[in-house]
């Protein structure tokens, strides 16, 4: 039988580094997006209240526009969910590359 030796320590170090890079970037992206979204909502709600007070929009229109905020929050959450799924795929594909390289280099 050929002497096949996989450097598991190296593989786990590389996989851990990959996970750290991808998921730290994802967490930062999600946090930045969430803050931007909240700032946008805050600004929008202030604007809509001013428009309502000034009689530029009706109460019914105001309520409708406020309902939009809930839908937009849902959209933002789905976007973040999707981008996290993308990050998981990046990690999986990167881990496969590391494992395949380890397998190839283990073959004498």
């Amino acid at each position: 039988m050929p002497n096949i030796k996989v450097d598991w320590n190296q593989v786990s170090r590389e996989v851990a580094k990959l996970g750290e890079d991808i998921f730290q970037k994802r967490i930062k992206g999600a946090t930045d997006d969430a803050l931007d979204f909240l700032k946008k909502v805050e600004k929008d709600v202030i604007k809509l209240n001013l428009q309502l007070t000034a009689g530029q929009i009706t109460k019914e229109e105001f309520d409708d526009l406020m309902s939009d905020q809930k839908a937009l929050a849902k959209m933002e959450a789905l976007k973040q969910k999707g981008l996290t799924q993308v990050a998981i795929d990046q990690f999986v594909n990167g881990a496969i590359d590391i494992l395949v390289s380890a397998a190839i280099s283990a073959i004498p």
Partner: protein
Amino acid sequence: MLVSEPLRGLLLAVFLLASCSNIAFYDQAAYANAVDTKVQTLALMNLAVNPYSSQSAEIAGVNLQMQKAYEYDRGRPMNQTTLQMWDVLLKTDPEHPDEGLWPRFLERWRKSGTLSPVFISDKKEHLATAFDAIIALESGKNRS
């Protein structure tokens, strides 16, 4: 034995990981559909200062464009998250009355006959944000 124990484990891990894709790859046509639909929708919304009945052809055109974009994304495997986003934009649901941003706008236009420029401008911002979320997710997907 042709393959040693550690190598077998490694190959098994590779096959298991390879079968775990979560979400569709980036698709240029889907991206273009979302961008085109956004532009056409916002352009149509400007016309809401006119009577709803006078814009029925334009409304039908944009609705058709939306349907095409939706159906294209519906046919892509592992694309449920994007489809859920389209649903929030396009589908009314009595259990979630805040959803269906687009049909709610059309319904208000239809009921009111015309809409004020201020209200249209507010709604355009919201619809643009909704489209931007779909576009951002598509653009963030992995390239195959």
